[in-house]
């Protein structure tokens, strides 16, 4: 391992961070320790150093050093982008952030989280104790999540093979990731499908290949009003109101969320409840089978009847 290069990178970072005006290459070569050799060697060194620092997330600003003559570009690192904006966070907030990053322990994102947590904890003071008993077992990670977060963070196109539910073969997709959602332990990517020119949802567990992340950054923009929930079926069911008869002592869960329950006769109660959609209501009614007899809406009642006929026929 080359200590010289490490030393030069630290010195370069410190120098660019210290300067209040843009430093031109010639000035960097003159003042920053570690640049030696021919002009061409130094240039090559500097280009690589710059790329390395940027790849590690350090923003280097480029501008013309002299506003009157657009000759040689100048470089600097702005302290406000380099330094964590610690002053805008309270010790409690730092404590929460640290706890949050700790949730990634034992996951594929552990190393990134540890690096971030170390710096968050490098702040003068924070309240480390945030006791929420339920957070211990969060299993945040999933295969592919590391790649997807990287791609989303740099707005880079991804490519992978995807097997649709029920399909026998995978097909290849090129996607601009727009957002990520975890739903009860499963991860979903919502992104622009570049071949289909449409925004689609992908279940991580159906990705059948390695995820290729383009090396280019900022290939697209995420609209500031993008809301992932608009594309996730779990968040978008419209509600319907259902009137039904329910056997006494049965369907506790329905009763628990009922709008109204009243006694109908010795055997039955009358219940009014809401479901997210016709599909969910149908499933619920079929699940309770002969303990729940839906009255209204009529179309739900007839789909239940049709489904029961179908089930009786296919299993009879």
């Amino acid at each position, binding site marked *: *391992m*080359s200590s010289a290069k*490490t*030393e030069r*990178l*630290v010195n370069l970072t410190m*120098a660019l961070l*210290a300067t209040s005006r843009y430093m031109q290459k010639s000035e960097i070569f003159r*003042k*920053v*320790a570690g640049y030696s050799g021919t002009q061409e060697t130094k240039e090559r060194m500097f280009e690589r150093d710059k790329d390395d620092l940027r790849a*590690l997330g350090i923003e280097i600003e480029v501008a013309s050093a002299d506003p009157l003559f657009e000759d040689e570009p100048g470089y600097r690192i702005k*302290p406000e982008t380099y*330094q964590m904006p610690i002053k805008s*966070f309270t010790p409690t*907030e730092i404590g*929460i952030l640290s706890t949050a990053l700790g949730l990634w322990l034992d996951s594929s994102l552990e190393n*990134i*989280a540890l690096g971030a947590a170390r710096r*968050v*904890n*490098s702040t*003068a003071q924070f309240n480390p104790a*945030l006791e*929420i008993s*339920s957070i211990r*077992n*969060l299993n945040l990670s999933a295969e592919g999540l590391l790649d997807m*977060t990287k791609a*989303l*963070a740099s707005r880079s196109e991804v490519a992978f093979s995807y097997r649709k*539910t*029920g*399909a026998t073969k995978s097909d290849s997709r090129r996607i601009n990731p727009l*957002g990520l*959602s*975890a739903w009860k332990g499963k991860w979903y990517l919502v992104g622009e499908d570049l071949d289909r020119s449409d925004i689609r949802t992908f279940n991580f567990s159906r990705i059948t290949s390695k995820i290729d992340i383009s090396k280019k950054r900022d290939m697209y*923009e*995420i609209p500031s009003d*993008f*809301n*992932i*929930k608009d594309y996730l079926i779990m968040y978008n069911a419209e509600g319907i109101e259902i009137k039904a008869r329910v056997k006494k002592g049965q*369907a506790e869960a329905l*009763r*628990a969320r009922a709008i109204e329950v009243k006694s109908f006769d010795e055997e039955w109660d009358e219940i009014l409840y809401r479901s*997210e959609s016709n599909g*969910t209501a149908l*499933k*619920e009614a*079929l*699940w309770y*089978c*002969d303990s729940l007899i839906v009255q209204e809406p009529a179309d739900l009642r007839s789909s239940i*009847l049709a489904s*029961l*006929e179908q089930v*009786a026929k*296919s*299993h009879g």
Partner: protein
Amino acid sequence: MVENAALRAIRLLDLVPYIVSHPGISIAELAREFSISRDEVLKDLNLLFLCGLPGYTPLELIDISFDEESVVIRDPQNLAAPRNLNESEALIARIALAALEDSAPKSSAAYPEIVALREKIAKAFSSSIPASAITYSLDKERVMLENIEGAIKQELDLEITYNNVTKDSSTRRSITPISIIAEDKRTLVSAYCHSAKALRTFNLSQITEASTIERLTRADLERLEESRGSSAEVLIKEEESSFLLENASSLKELSNSRYQIDIFQPEWIVRSVLAGADSLELAQPIALRAEIAERARKALLAYKG
């Protein structure tokens, strides 16, 4: 790919503010915190000695002193503040905060702080990804769920405390858990309730306590018992079947649209296939197929009667 030298440079840049905020930290502690060996820490500290601002006189160099037990930085130059989070780090912090927000009880003191911090982080770092691009919805009752799943697999009964929202009361019951039904917004536990002597469904979020007890007997469920612990074959006729999505991890694909699933509770598969309507068909075992047809016919009679 970033070279090792660059990764090491980043570590050096991060060591400085860490030591500044932990004055007197030992070499061993630093090694543990940065996941490197004691020798690597020593090499890093010796290299930091040589780094500084242009000029590189003792006044401009990082001033550091250390022995085995204590590392102190007397002058960090312009590296006292920790490096900002980069976009990947900010993004995973935001995902974790979304998870925290979803798991923290809304009544807890930390909850409003978490919500506010999530917004703040989204604005402070990585503002090119809007806050609404990340959602996290977790099984809040996961620990409870694992407890109940364990009882089902080990064939144990449970003594539970159940909060009945409708009745606004809390009761103790002993139940034989049959199955867990994961719906979009809640999880239900289907069980035989020994207090009510009938099949009941419990909302997982309303079970406040559960402890396992030896299994009690249930005469009216015995006819299904033979199928317990066996496996079933299910035909899934729709691509987007929710049964397929919800049970993806326990389904084994036999051939196109034909799947095998282990059944711990026959009642569960019977109800699931009924609920799946025309998207599902139970092929095996025959006894449960007949049970499904029988129940569907009973329900049809109830509808028409």
